[in-house]
């Protein structure tokens, strides 16, 4: 079984996250880059399967600038066997359609029986990349699964809905995404950290995947037309209490149709 785990590097959710005011894309220098927690959970699902199934190969797939290499090495330390990093300047600011097309090509290039992703990243929160990749690959997708069973020929899992749960299953090869109910990732073993440096990490450019920006763009993608700084907060209205503050306050709220 060959499992690809999608790994996304995101700005630390505990830090301040910024967009570049001119380009409208993420300002990566503004915060600490970390592996998205949901990607770590996806990796844990793959690693747990491998723990009990010898011969399973776990390959990480990440896309992004050079700093993504560090995220992939860290994920390799957790126990994945190898990693693929799609690195190309032309990918800066890639939208979801663009990203899904590239990841699908990289998935085919790498070979897979199962792709496991997080349901949605903590930065973009699109939540559609796994389904879009499945469309490209023409494979079944089971998304937003709270639990996942990987069998020899098929996968199954449970998805919550507003009214109940759905038992979903599909034949392999397939794409799945898991929710934050998937287990927390393990801590790295020191031998894993040491061996991570020696594990294969392949860097691929768009050309290596038989893609070029012109072809990708021709399928249509979002363009940032205009950026605008969020207006800074203005001072509020102060109601001084000269014995009539209650009425003043009520008038203020009523004027805004708040009461």
């Amino acid at each position, binding site marked *: 079984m060959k499992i690809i785990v999608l790994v996304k590097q995101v700005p630390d959710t505990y830090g301040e996250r910024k967009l570049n005011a001119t380009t409208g894309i993420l300002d990566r220098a503004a915060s600490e880059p970390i592996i998205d927690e949901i990607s770590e959970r996806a990796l844990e699902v793959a690693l747990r399967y491998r723990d009990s199934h010898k011969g399973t190969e776990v390959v990480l797939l990440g896309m992004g600038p050079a700093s993504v290499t560090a995220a992939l090495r860290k994920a390799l330390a957790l126990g994945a066997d190898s990693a693929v990093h799609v690195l190309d300047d032309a990918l800066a600011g890639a939208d979801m359609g663009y990203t899904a097309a590239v990841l699908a090509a990289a998935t085919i290039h790498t070979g897979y029986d199962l792709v496991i992703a997080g349901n949605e990243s903590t930065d973009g929160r699109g939540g559609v990349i796994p389904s879009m990749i499945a469309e490209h690959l023409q494979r079944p997708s089971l998304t937003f699964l709270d639990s996942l069973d990987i069998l020899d020929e098929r996968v199954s899992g449970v998805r919550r809905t507003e009214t109940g749960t759905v038992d979903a299953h599909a034949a392999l090869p397939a794409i799945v995404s898991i929710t934050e109910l998937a287990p927390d990732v*393990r*801590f*790295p073993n*020191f*031998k894993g*950290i040491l061996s991570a440096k020696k594990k294969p990490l392949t860097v691929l450019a768009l050309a290596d995947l038989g893609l070029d920006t012109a072809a990708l763009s021709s399928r249509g993608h979002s363009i940032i037309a205009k950026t605008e700084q969020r207006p800074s907060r203005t001072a509020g209205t102060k109601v001084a209490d000269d014995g009539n503050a209650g009425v003043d306050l009520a008038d203020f709220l009523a004027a805004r149709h708040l009461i």
Partner: protein
Amino acid sequence: MSHFSPPLSDITFVLEHVVGYPDIARLPGYEHADLETVVELLDQCGEFMAEVVAPTNRTGDLVGARWQSDGSVLTPPGFADAYHQYVDAGWGALPLPEEFGGGGFPRTIGLIVQELMTSANMAFALCPLLTQGAIEALVHYGSAKQQQLFLPKMVTGEWTGTMNLTEPQAGSDVGALTTRAVQRDDGSYALSGQKIFITFGEHDMAEQIIHLVLARTPGSPAGTKGISCFIVPKFLMNDDGTLGEQNGVSALSIEHKLGIHGAPTCVLSYDDATGYLIGDENMGMQIMFVMMNSARLSVGMQGLAVAERAYQQSLAYAQERRQGLAIGAASPDSAIIEFPDVRRMLMTQKAHIAALRRMMLLNAAHFDHSTHDPDPVSRARAEEIVGLLTPICKSFGTDLGDELTSLALQIHGGMGYIEETGVAQHLRDARIAPIYEGTNGIQAADLVGRKLSVRGGASATEFLAGMREIIAELAAAGDAFTSIRVQLDQHLASLETATEWMLRTGRADPNAMLAGSGPYLRMWGLCLGGWLMARSALAGPATGDAAFAETQLVLARFYAEQLLPECTALLGAATAGADDLFELDADQLADVSKRLVG
């Protein structure tokens, strides 16, 4: 519950710029342990200790280990799960020999792992600490068969180890022990007797416990010369390496004690228990001495580690607690960190903690040279220095562990004295460290009795001369270093005077030497601290981080001007001799006038 933040920038700085770690990474056998690799490992290790182990500390104190009527012992909630994760992550194996599954990293790095784990939870960290002691004994003296049978699973931590020395009548005088071992026809021994104060002697975190037990064989010489060391597994081993039936060892009770509530301190009964001799009969003390330096350094580190945790909590509290108005403050009230008295307590903790960390790691660095330096002369000298520094690290480190955790509590005021803030736990936990692994009095006796006399005193005086070399460096470093130089010069002179007195007096009047040994050891600790802080101040600019360099300079200056002068104040006590200590008899030490009236 207080958060634990691993002090990794200080540790990294000390490794690179103060204790010469890059030289250790160049020693044959440690090439894989380059600075960049170890910093990455320690980063991950710190994250593990902070996220997995530290949250168990408070529960460990509140719930404690619990003895069950069937003789089993439950560790506090969360301990077993954290321990299993610790085994999976493999941190205990990092400094252990590669041939048994370890990482083959230097002792220096192993000590940092211990520090991080002990700051996270001292009671929890005792289990791996004792296991490591048992492993070292087996690595040095176990037969190939014993090593193969026991070491791999002890190295991973799947099995834990204990050290069984103390008996009710045999504490500091281990030679008084009476547990008996009688050889059987099959070559194994039958052990009978009772051991007390056995840390993690019984628990639920591992499937097997390997007890190392000191006992006497029939007809053995009296005292320490007649002691042998045995392996007594909790479960007997089947021929195929699986666990068999329970051996004749059981936990009769666990102690109620001041601190480290999470660590079960067991009374173990040996009733015809099967044991396997390590080495030869009567070699027990020799085997124990192998681990002595290593275990004593680790206990000194405990003082540092718990002080670090308490310091972090007191620093956070000092910023959060608002009381009164500081001089020059405008707001309705001030955080107590704005008051000079609280600042003094914070600076005293910070400077002593920094000095202790440098001292412990310097000792460990010399240990690594003593085992791995290709030059036999360097190895021998490094071993002498380890011998000299170890009683100082153990005693000064653990005395300060008490004093600094007490300051951390003081910053909390009444809120610290009640148990709710949790800061009292650190003081209670740290209090054992000056007692066990050779009381601090015994450490001081070891320093003046055994270590000072090495090569007729030359080992110590050569080390002192080496410390003095920094005076010239400080003189060349500019005005900012002047007070550090002047203070170090003066107090090193006091230490030199005391050392000459000890060497002169010792042979003729050993009791006078012992009488001054405690204060004398503290003089050493203070000078080592001042010297290492000065080295840090000189090295600070090499980091290229101006704020960090300033921190080192200010800490070194504070240490030199405000902490180090205690050294010269101790000169009188160190050289006063024993007369006044013995001048009053026991009646006079009691309230004599009351006796006369009664």
